[in-house]
């Protein structure tokens, strides 16, 4: 039964349109009634919002092309400056007003020129008595452009005095768009999310021809059962469905089960899908790798993901430097004495152990530390294990400093100290394992932060046989 009807458009087109946009009938009929007939005016601006992949772009594009309404479709991510955006609109306008004429390059720097050129472009016969639609996809990018762009597009009908409707598509609600000086309020329209039934219907629409529709629908059902809690993004689900279908069919192909053995198929696929959530869904393993893995019949997840490759080969001292930095970032200063001094005085255990959750640094993130604290910790932890080398390390630098001290003044010496240590530290900073806090004076004690995760630092500590957990206040 046809749901869409409108006197201005041929019924055949509407029927075709309806078959193209499943589960979006009410939105389309709403849009149709708002658009009205071709020569009638419509809203100056329609703002459409909805979730990721709720069919905003698709519905709009199909609607406009099926009914052959004159339109311009621009993605605001592609046109990231106002000039690119305005010129793109004018170019598309030229081609839609005259199919045969060659399109000459347009130059349009300001909105003022845009309005003037726009009027010229619309003056052609076929565009004059029809509503022209300018669809701006990913409209949240308009907020990043000059302040006058968004209000001007909202009032384009008034400014140009032509029959034009601007359609903005975005994931973000209108309240976050409104400029502080106010603007012409658009008509806002919501594209609701697909329910689980809708997703089921859309996903099982184009099933592979070699299997029956019910077989594929059952597969989609299992897939949604695993992923629906986490993800309602149609695109993502469709991608996952395409990737894992081969695995689902495997028992049937091998002849271990037939198409109606739902339970057997489910048992086969479910752990596989759960594995997929940890790997393919997070893009740890690329989809081509995943497919290859299935093809060879390897165990899912035996491949190392992207995040397993993050560890870097560091020199011996850099490892200790990094460990020291981690300890300095995540331990409070008052506990340093207890951890790193051999002959620390008596510390009352109760007092030391007293801590509350709010102050846990693994919850709040790393604290910045000065350079001398880092060095003190470094000497302390290196000293314990590889004393001679550490001595050489420090002796060399002391000797160097002493010489320098004779030659030049104290400032010079401080400068050299900083340079020596900085050479090592900067390499860690460029690897983004450390970061400098506050870009103030380099000489005057720069403060650093350690920006690696606990797992990473544990892996590093393991390579040098250092038990880091023993030294961390949060894990006492």
């Amino acid at each position, binding site marked *: 039964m046809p749901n869409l009807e*409108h006197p201005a458009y041929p019924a055949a087109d509407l029927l075709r349109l309806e078959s193209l946009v499943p589960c979006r009938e*009410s939105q389309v009929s709403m849009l149709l009634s708002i658009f009205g007939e071709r020569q009638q005016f419509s809203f100056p601006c329609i703002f459409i919002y909805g979730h990721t992949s709720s069919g905003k772009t698709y519905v709009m594009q199909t609607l406009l092309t099926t009914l052959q309404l004159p339109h311009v479709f621009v993605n605001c991510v592609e046109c990231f400056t106002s000039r690119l955006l305005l010129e793109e609109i004018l170019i598309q306008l030229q081609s839609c007003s005259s199919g045969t004429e060659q399109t000459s390059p347009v130059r349009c720097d300001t909105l003022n020129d845009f309005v003037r050129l726009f009027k010229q472009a619309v003056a052609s016969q076929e565009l004059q008595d029809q509503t022209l639609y300018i669809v701006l996809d990913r409209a949240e990018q308009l907020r990043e452009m000059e302040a*006058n762009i968004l209000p001007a597009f909202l009032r384009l009908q008034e400014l140009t005095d032509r029959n034009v409707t601007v359609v903005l598509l975005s994931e973000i*609600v209108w309240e976050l768009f409104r400029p502080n000086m106010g603007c012409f309020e658009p008509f806002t329209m919501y594209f609701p999310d697909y329910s689980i039934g809708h997703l089921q219907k859309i996903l099982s629409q184009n099933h592979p021809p070699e299997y029956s529709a019910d077989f594929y629908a059952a597969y989609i059902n299992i897939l949604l059962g695993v992923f629906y809690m986490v993800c309602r993004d149609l695109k993502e689900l469709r991608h996952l469905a395409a990737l894992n279908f081969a695995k689902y069919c495997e028992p049937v192909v091998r002849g271990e089960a037939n198409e109606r053995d739902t339970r057997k198929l489910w048992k086969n696929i479910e752990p596989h899908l759960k594995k997929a959530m940890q790997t393919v869904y997070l893009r740890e393993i690329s989809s081509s790798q995943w497919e290859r893995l299935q093809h060879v019949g390897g165990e899912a997840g035996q491949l190392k993901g992207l995040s397993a490759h993050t560890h870097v080969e560091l020199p011996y001292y850099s490892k200790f430097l990094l460990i020291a930095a981690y300890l300095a970032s995540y331990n409070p200063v008052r506990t340093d004495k207890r951890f790193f001094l051999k002959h620390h005085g008596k510390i009352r255990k109760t007092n030391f152990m007293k801590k509350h959750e709010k102050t846990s640094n693994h919850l709040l*993130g790393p604290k910045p530390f000065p350079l001398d604290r880092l060095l003190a910790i470094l000497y302390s932890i290196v000293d314990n294990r590889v004393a001679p080398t550490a001595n050489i390390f420090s002796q060399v630098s002391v000797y160097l400093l002493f010489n320098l001290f004779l030659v030049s003044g104290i400032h010079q010496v401080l400068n050299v100290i900083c340079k020596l240590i900085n050479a090592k530290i900067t390499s860690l900073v460029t690897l983004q394992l450390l970061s400098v806090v506050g870009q103030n004076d380099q000489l005057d004690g720069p403060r650093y932060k350690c*920006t690696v995760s606990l797992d990473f630092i544990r892996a590093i500590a393991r390579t040098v046989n250092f038990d880091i957990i023993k030294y961390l206040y949060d894990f006492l």
Partner: protein
Amino acid sequence: MRPTTRPSSARAPASLREPRIQPMKPSAVSKRKLKESSAESAESISQVQKILRERFCHHCAAGKLFGMEQQYRHLLELLKRTTVHGESNSALIIGPRGSGKTTLLNHVLKDLREMKQVRENLLEVHLNGKAPVQSDVQKGKKLCKAGKGGKFLVGEKDNCQLFMRNPFLSGLLQTNDKVALKEITRQLQLENVVGDKVFGSFAENLAFLLEALRKGDRTSSCPILFVLDEFDLFVHHKNQTLLYNLFDISQSAQTPVTVIGLTCRQDILELLEKRVKSRFSHRQIYLMNSFDFKQYIKIFKKQLSLPDEFPDESFAQKWNNNVQHLSEDKTVQDVLQKLFHHTKDLRSLHLLLMLAGSAVTVHHPLLTAADLQEASRQHSTDCKANIVHGLSVLEICLIIAMKHLNEVYDGEPFNFQMVYNEFQKFIQRKAHSMYNFEKPVVMKAFEHLLQLELVQPLERPSVRAQREYLLMKLLLDSSQIMEALQVYPNCPTDVKQWAASSLSWL
């Protein structure tokens, strides 16, 4: 023609619309008539749509002004003095958005054009705002060429009748003085304009314009009316050069110039520089939406009625009767009252009426109260609640965790790690319906919330900072969350319970 026997409610899927109440007899009558003369009816429906759409969407200067008679008289008098006597003036029209500033000006200009003594002195060069009246522009161009050969003075009186010129500038389009000046030169059709291109640098243009203006005098030159839309944006130009020059000319005995500024800022005079302010005449016309609900109903009726010159008289009669009925209907009045309490500006009324009006089709020829109710429902939905409705269960759980954090720590900003900890506590102690998600999966859900801007970082995230320790704040308040949870489809019970209990289980 499509089959005409469809019931009227089949226009949209039944799921969208509530069963339509049909309080009015005429609707049923017209449906019967429909079978006899559907072609004629389709014609008039299309006419109705055309008229209403032009009225609501494309605000043309038709119909009546509401509650601004005094301001209208004031402005008309002012502009008449400019055109007839060659007085220079300046004025600001101040009012909130959608209070009819542009409409007022358009009305005054239209009525000015109709007056006999003014029409003789008037040349429409409608620029930027409204469509240029083609013949007039050509007249102007001819005038330029025939007039002086080389140099064309602004509005030379002895050549022809006295005309008024009217450049229309909008602060949105002319974002700096250079662009504004070029636009003025172009709109005045001065000699350095070829086609619609303007030549010369900024300094040349300014010197040229000032010289042209200085040459004129009160008796012989044609007056110019400058309309500055979004006046407050012109204030931010460098040194306010354009404003200074315009006001300066309006103060001295040069070509008669009237400057009308339209703005919605009440503190506009504070933004002017001292020298600019001293040259401004301090004439302000305030447009406040000063009408009560009774008048609002009247406006509603007036806006929705068909004009007398509607071709199908019987249909117009029927339509207007229906509108009369509607305005007395209780449910309609409730809808309007709600809107009136929300905002008094007529633009949102237009939006509502347009939305209701677009539902009118051949099968459903007359507006009903249900149409208006539906439009009002469309108009006043909470968009944040809509967005929350479409989130996955995991994302909802994260939002609840954030809500708890907000309540426990009294609105302090939080980071992902804290939210994750809170969520972990829930999983370990309470949840039965949920298995444990890995941290990266939760992170992905969190980033989706960030992308939807339901959560906002306190500072711009840099490359260096770790994602899990970035401080955030939640842009939803707890009542919004609870309401959204009420309507959330298939929400697990333990999640609901967890949302309701914030401090009790800590």
